[in-house]
């Protein structure tokens, strides 16, 4: 599959995705697994709903005092001998990472999973500058070999079937014995590990993301299941953390609140296999750890949404539950969204970070069914905010003119009851007659979108209001 970077092509991307048999197979497997797995995890924690309130309130507090906690975080990191780099945009973040890598003449960089890494396009940038990035998360490793982008926030290779993983390894791993059995996940994992070991040992710099930044400790936290993150950040000489500004929380207690919500919502686990706290470089008495600890603090447009109708999206902890429960995501997968983030949260974030003019269809690619909001651990009112994007498109004349005219015309009628009743009577009669007693229409004027895949049930003939008046 080609890498798509065009959110405005959502419709065409979706059509391609709907006809991609292996993608559909992968999506069905994911859907059938993720929904019941989360449900069972939530069932086992009676206070989950209250915990969601705590998480929401905590993040609201942080967002209201973001400057304060970020400055505190910086102070704490510096006090531990680490460095914080404030980066307003992707370009400055990339430049700082390269600078740090060059300071030790780095040739190889290992990477843990990081959506910020995707957001700033760090891999392509490092490669272009002669530094080899090696993804160490299994999913990320698979898609790196396939030259693809993640299709899910926490399951980057969700779109790849097991058979395709085997095929990819056989193609990419030189010296792999053709007779070797790779037909189960454990064997594939072992094969990837064997290959990655060398990368871990030769890397000069390790780059990870951060699930949380703890302000008073000056620590970053990663939540993983494979242990690759630990090797990535402890073995090389330098550890670089890529984090966006809204990841900060006041203290360890708050991090624990979010740590109870994140794995349950994301993978249905009570706790991830590894929760790793990193605070500063290796101290004299430490047995291991990096010589330098750098945190790239990325804004990339986020702060512009503070105090706006979109502020609540900054509560997101990137668990992926909204993707897992979205019927649109279930149908088309992540790549159709055309940029780093996908699913309901992607339809909020991509317009925010990339410009609404570059993501026009995304806020509309939802039935507003609300299932995302019902599972979001941070209680982000996603449908409400999708509607806010639609409002900005409508008000800013970004929405297509014919559509705007049609809505305004319809509203003209809906605001005038007598005119509306008349129009409804005509429409009811017209469509009824067109159906010629069949009860439904195979096609109808202005209804091509509807009748492409379904019949249009015909009106019974006279409107309710008309009949009601006749009765009374």
């Amino acid at each position: 599959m080609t890498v798509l970077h065009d959110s405005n092509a959502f419709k065409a991307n979706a059509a391609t995705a709907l006809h991609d048999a292996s993608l559909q197979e992968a999506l069905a497997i994911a859907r059938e697994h993720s929904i019941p797995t989360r449900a069972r995890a939530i069932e086992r924690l009676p206070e989950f709903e209250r915990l969601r309130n705590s998480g929401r309130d905590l993040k609201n507090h942080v967002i209201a005092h973001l400057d304060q906690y970020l400055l505190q975080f910086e102070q704490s990191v510096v006090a531990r001998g680490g460095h914080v780099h404030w980066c307003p945009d992707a370009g400055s973040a990339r430049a700082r990472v390269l600078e740090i890598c060059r300071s030790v003449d780095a040739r190889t960089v290992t990477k843990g999973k990081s959506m910020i890494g995707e957001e700033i396009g760090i891999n392509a940038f490092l490669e272009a500058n002669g530094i080899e990035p090696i993804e160490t998360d299994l999913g990320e490793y698979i898609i790196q070999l396939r030259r693809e982008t993640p299709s899910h926030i926490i399951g980057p290779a969700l779109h790849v079937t097991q058979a395709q993983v085997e095929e990819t390894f056989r193609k990419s791993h030189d010296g792999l014995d053709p007779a070797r059995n790779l037909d189960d996940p454990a064997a594939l994992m072992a094969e990837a590990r064997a290959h990655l070991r060398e990368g871990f040992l030769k890397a000069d710099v390790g780059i990870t993301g951060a699930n949380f930044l703890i302000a008073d400790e000056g620590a970053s936290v990663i939540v993983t299941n494979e242990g690759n993150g630990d090797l990535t950040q402890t073995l090389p000489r330098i550890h670089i953390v890529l984090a966006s500004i809204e990841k900060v929380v006041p203290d360890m207690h708050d991090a624990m609140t979010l740590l109870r919500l994140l794995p349950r919502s994301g993978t249905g686990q009570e706790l991830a296999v590894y929760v790793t706290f990193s605070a500063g470089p290796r101290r004299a008495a430490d047995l291991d750890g990096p010589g330098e600890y750098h945190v790239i603090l990325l804004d990339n447009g986020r702060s512009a949404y503070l105090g706006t109708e979109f502020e609540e999206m900054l509560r997101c902890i990137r668990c992926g539950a909204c993707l897992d429960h979205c019927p649109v995501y279930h149908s088309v997968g992540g790549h159709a969204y055309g940029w780093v983030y996908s699913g309901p949260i992607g339809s909020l974030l991509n317009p925010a970070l990339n410009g609404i003019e570059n993501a026009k269809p995304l806020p509309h690619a939802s039935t507003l069914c609300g299932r995302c909001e019902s599972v979001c651990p941070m209680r982000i009112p996603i449908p409400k905010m999708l509607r806010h994007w639609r409002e900005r498109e409508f008000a800013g004349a970004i929405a297509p003119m014919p559509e705007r005219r049609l809505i305004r015309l319809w509203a003209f009628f809906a605001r005038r009851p007598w005119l509306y009743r008349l129009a409804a009577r005509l429409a009811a009669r017209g469509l009824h007659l067109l159906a010629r007693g069949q009860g439904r229409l195979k096609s109808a004027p202005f209804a091509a979108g509807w009748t492409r895949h379904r019949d249009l049930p015909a009106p019974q003939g006279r409107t309710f209001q008309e009949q009601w008046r006749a009765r009374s």
Partner: protein
Amino acid sequence: MTSQPSSKVDTVALFVTCLVDLFRPSIGFAAVKLLEDAGCQVVVPPGQTCCGQPAYNSGDRESAMAIAQGTILALEAHPAIVVPSGSCAGMLKRHYPELLADDMNWGPRARSLADRVFELTQYLAARGLRIDAQVAARATYHDSCSSLREMQVKEAPRDLISQVRELSLAEMAETEACCGFGGTFCVKFPDVSDAMAQRKVDCIRATGADLLLAGDLGCLLNLAGKLKRAGSTIAVRHVAEVLAGMTAQPAIGESGTGDSRMGDSGVGGK
């Protein structure tokens, strides 16, 4: 938050919804019958048109606000407003107050109206209506997303359906999944909408039901259209029709028994 309908309230205003008005008035008459059976006197305020969702969900906030004001004006004099649709009820109950929150005049009026808005089955169940209907069928019930998540309606329709004689209810899998209608979504993204409808139809078929019920005509038009295009014999009806025992009308998307004279519904004049 949701106020309980008072048993003293005898007059209810029916907000019939634009889809019922245009496509299937028999649902409106079934709702009237059920409300009358529950001891209510039903009025249909003439100033009503549509709740405004097409504008609201298309981002035309200005039109949505104007339509909301018109609807409030038409309905606010009545002690209870009953809506045979979770989606339109949710618009009146959840979204009008948000839409008009900053308006000194309309904000309080929107909130006052919202307190008195009920989805039909929710209202009937709360009033303790005993259902007197007989429909021989194996039915399955589709929860509309708005009923489920904006109006918290889940048990009410099932409690009422369980009282219908000779009718059995078979729950489908994935009851919380959307059917793919989504208002303008289904015409803007017909292929994605179709994939969603297909999964819903697969779940419906797996129950072995011969009757599909729901409380929202939008979902019903979508699913009936999908089922009929595929040649399915599963009958599709609004839950009110079955609860009222008014099933003489052809099911949604089906032709009559040879008599298709316009408006000869046989239910309007009773």
